[in-house]
């Protein structure tokens, strides 16, 4: 059972001692201060509606992940012969040409990381919302991994950008961008903002399992 405190915060946290932490410059201010004295950022004990904002961005990202996989990310034009390749198609192509290492890099960066990240944020939001003791340290570590790997999914978009710039030899061989590139970039950006919006301090306000 969660132990009963008079305040909603754990007693050794700054919020329980009447202090607000500025998320930008990390200066403390007494509770009731509207804006940080040093940098002017709006202050509140916890990020307002953090879980709701995270979840809504997450759902948008999940929806956009569908067109990102359905449409081609890249169109190769070889002597007038057009080949459209999706993200998964590209991985299969690498597997067929026995470049297992690249296949693994692309598979991890564009399939495992985005899906794993979305699952991780959903799990964090669920844990922060329900009224049960949680494993705080483990969840915080999971959050850190999620935040760290977030931008690495952009690898796929950068690969396309470089190939498109490099391979433009007129009718001989040229590569064009596909519609999926925009959706995939949006998925990455939305999940990054979603992870950033999640306030890990909510986890520490709960009781340890």
């Amino acid at each position, binding site marked *: 059972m969660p132990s009963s405190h008079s305040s909603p915060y754990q007693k050794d946290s700054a919020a329980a001692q009447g202090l607000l932490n500025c998320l930008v410059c990390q200066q403390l201010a007494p509770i009731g201060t509207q804006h940080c004295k040093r940098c002017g950022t709006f202050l509140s004990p916890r990020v307002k509606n953090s879980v709701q904002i995270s979840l809504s961005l997450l759902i948008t990202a999940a929806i956009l992940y569908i067109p990102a996989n359905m449409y081609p990310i890249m169109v190769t034009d070889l002597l007038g012969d057009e080949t459209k390749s999706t993200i998964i198609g590209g991985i299969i192509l690498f597997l067929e040409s026995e470049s297992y*290492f690249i296949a693994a890099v692309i598979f991890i960066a564009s399939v495992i990381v985005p899906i794993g990240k979305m699952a991780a944020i959903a799990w964090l939001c669920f844990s922060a919302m329900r009224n049960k003791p949680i494993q705080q340290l483990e969840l915080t570590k999971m959050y850190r991994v999620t935040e760290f790997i977030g931008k690495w999914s952009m690898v796929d978009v*950068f*690969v396309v950008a470089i190939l498109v710039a490099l*391979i*433009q030899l007129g009718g001989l061989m040229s590569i064009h961008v596909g519609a999926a590139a925009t959706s995939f970039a949006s998925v990455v950006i939305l999940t990054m903002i979603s992870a950033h919006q999640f306030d890990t301090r909510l986890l520490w306000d709960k009781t340890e399992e």
Partner: protein
Amino acid sequence: MIDEHQHACLECDLLITMPEQISHRSNVVCPRCHHVIAVGHNNARHYVLALCITALILMLIACSFAFISFATSGQQRTIGLLQTSTELYSQGYWLISVLVFVFILLLPILYLLSVSYIILSSRFALRLVPIVWLGKVIAYILPWSMAEVFLIGVLVALIKVISMADITLEAAFWAYVLFAPLFTHIVFIVDNHRLWRWIEDAK
């Protein structure tokens, strides 16, 4: 009255007292959630300024010279770093084009310039840009600088085309190969605690 050495952990809100002196190469870590709060370095100001200037010079080289050359059956094409963004733009994909430009060039450069400016203004009275404003800018752009991600992207793209044609890696490529890890190192040394102490000194 709030004690100057009091610090609330960003990730778990634990109230801790910061040590007066953080010894070289040792980190201040939150005792509860293990979040790294500050990184110890004896001469961070000079060290970071020197690294920032080096990184900016490397970036200048990366932007002004050829990046990669690609030749197959008599046809040759050489691209610069900027073309990774402009080529997308000319194909009508302006959103990704802008994103690529912002993530790999604009934000890293903006970050380096801001940090150098903050360090320099603690020594000289520069009054061109409000320093606190720069500190806020850094806080917002840092998660979006993707120099190291782009480097991996370049390597993957190279392996993809290396069997198709003759690839020559030009000066800008090597400059960027040096730039990306250097940038990551600078970001590691300039933790938030140190950055805002510099800003306080410069005010």
